[in-house]
C-alpha cells in the first residue's frame, strides 16, 4: 500500500493541475497579505482584520475546491481506465485504493496550503509580532485538516460517480454547496435558531468547510464577536478553546466518515 501511495502522490505532484493550483493559491494568498499589510500592522493576528479574513476565506475556498475535484477525478479515473481493476487483482483492496487516493490528494492540497501560507508568512514577517506565530501555525493546522476533509469528500464523490464527467460535476456541486450554499442559506439566514440547540449544533456540524472557517475565526478572535449565531452559541456553551476543539473534531469526523463510506461503496461495486 505504501508503494501505491507513493505512486499516486508522484503522479499528482507531477501533474500540471497540482502545480497550477499551488501557484494560484500562493499568488492569491501573497497578494491578499500584501494588500492587507496595513491591517496586519494594526491588529496583527490577534483579531479578524480584512487581510486575515481574506487569507482564511481563500484557504477555505481554493485548496478545498482542488481537493474535492482531484479526489473525485482520481478515483473515478482509475476505475474508468481499468487501472483500479488491475491493481485490485494484484491485491490492492478497496481500502487501499481509497486510502491511497485520499492521501495523495490531501498531500497535493497541502502543497497548495504550504505554498500560500509560506508566501503569506514571508510577506508579513517583521510586521506581525512574534507572539502571533502560534496563531498563524494554528490557522495553518486547521486548514490542513479542512483540506483533508475536502479530499475525503471528493473521494466519496468519486466512489459514487460512474464516469469522470459525473465525478467532476458532482464535485463542483458538492463544493459549491459546502463552500457557499450552507454558509449563505443555512447559517446566513439563521432559520435553524428557532429549532433549538440541536439544530444549532447540527448546523455547525453539517459542513466541514464552515466548521473550519468558524474554528479559524475563533483562533483570531477568541470572543467570537465576528461570528454568526452558530459560532456565538458554541462559544457561550463551550468557551473559545472548547469550541475550536469541537469544530476541529467535526472536521476530523468529515475525514473519517466519507473515507469509510467510500471504502464500503468501492467494495460493493465493479472495478
Amino acid at each position, binding site marked *: 500500500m505504501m*508503494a501505491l501511495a507513493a505512486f499516486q502522490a508522484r503522479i499528482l505532484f507531477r501533474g500540471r493541475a497540482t502545480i497550477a493550483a499551488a501557484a494560484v493559491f500562493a499568488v492569491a494568498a501573497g497578494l491578499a497579505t500584501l494588500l492587507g499589510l496595513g491591517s496586519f500592522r494594526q491588529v496583527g493576528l490577534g483579531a479578524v482584520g480584512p487581510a486575515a479574513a481574506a487569507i482564511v476565506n481563500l484557504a477555505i475556498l481554493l485548496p478545498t475546491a482542488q481537493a474535492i475535484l482531484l479526489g473525485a477525478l482520481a478515483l473515478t479515473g482509475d476505475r474508468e481506465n*481499468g*487501472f483500479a481493476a488491475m491493481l*485490485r487483482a494484484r491485491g490492492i483492496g478497496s481500502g487501499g485504493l481509497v486510502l491511497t487516493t485520499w492521501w495523495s490528494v490531501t498531500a497535493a492540497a497541502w502543497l497548495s496550503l504550504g505554498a500560500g501560507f509560506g508566501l503569506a508568512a514571508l510577506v508579513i514577517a517583521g510586521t506581525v509580532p512574534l507572539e502571533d506565530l502560534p496563531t498563524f501555525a494554528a490557522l495553518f493546522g486547521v486548514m490542513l485538516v479542512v483540506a483533508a476533509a475536502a479530499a475525503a469528500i471528493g473521494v466519496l464523490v468519486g466512489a459514487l460517480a460512474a464516469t469522470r464527467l459525473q465525478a467532476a460535476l458532482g464535485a463542483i456541486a458538492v463544493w459549491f454547496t459546502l463552500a457557499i450554499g450552507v454558509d449563505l442559506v443555512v447559517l446566513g439566514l439563521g432559520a435553524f435558531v428557532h429549532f433549538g440547540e440541536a439544530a444549532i449544533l447540527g448546523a455547525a456540524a453539517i459542513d466541514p468547510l464552515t466548521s473550519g472557517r468558524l474554528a479559524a475565526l475563533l483562533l483570531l478572535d477568541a470572543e467570537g464577536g465576528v461570528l454568526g449565531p452558530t459560532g456565538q452559541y458554541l462559544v457561550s456553551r463551550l468557551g473559545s478553546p472548547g469550541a475550536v476543539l469541537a469544530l476541529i473534531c467535526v472536521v476530523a469526523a468529515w475525514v473519517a466518515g466519507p473515507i469509510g463510506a467510500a471504502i464500503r461503496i468501492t467494495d460493493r461495486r465493479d472495478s
Partner: protein
Amino acid sequence: MTRPASRLVVRGLGKRYGDHVALEGLDLDLPGSTLLAVVGANGAGKSTLLGSLAGVLRHEGTASLDGRPLRPGDGRTTYLPQRLRLPAAATVADVLGLLRALVDGTPDRVSPPDDFVPEGSRRIGELSGGQAQRVALAGALMGAPDLVLLDEPLANLDDEARAIATGLFRAHRDAGAIVLVASPAAHDVLAAADLAARIDNSRLAALGPATAFLASLGHTIRSEGAA
C-alpha cells in the same frame, strides 16, 4: 493415461447488468499448464468472464483454483483489463516499479527482452498505444501468478511484439500457469493456445482444441471469401 486433475474449476458463473445478461451459467474445468484462447464476437461475454475470474466484477457462481476459491489479491492471479489506460503522468519506471512492489519480491517466472518496454524515464502519456500496451503487459506478467487473465493483450502491438507476447504466454503456461487470453481477432491467440473456448450470447458455446477452432475459422473465412 489418467487425465490431470482440473486446477481451475468454474461453476455457474453469471453476471447481469440490470436486465442485460452478460454471462450466464458458465461452467469450466481446466487442467494445469493450459493456454486457453477465449474467443467470441464483440459483446459475447469474454471480458465479463475474465473480469469475474479476476474478482473485479461482482458475479454469481463460484471459481476455484487448486481447490481454493479465487479471491482478488490472494497472490495467485494477475489480470490485464481490456483497453487499460495507464496514468499518463506516470513514467514507465513508476508503473513497473509499482507492479513490481505488488508481487512482493516474487521473482519473475519469465521476463520479456530488455527492449520490449520503452525507457523507464519516459512518461506513459508520451508513448504510442502499442508502447503503452507493452508496459502494461510486462507489468501484468511480473511475478509467478498461477492464473493469468489477459483481455485483448495483443491490441495495438506490432508483429514483433505480438510474437514476443505470445512467447511469454507460452512460457507462463510451460511453467505451470493457467493462461486465459480473450481476443475477438482470434488467429494470433489460437495459434499459440492449447484450448479454445467460444462464448456466444453470454454462454459457453464450445470448448475444444485450439487447432480445431483455428481450422474452422480458416474454413469460415475461405467460405466467406468464396461467396
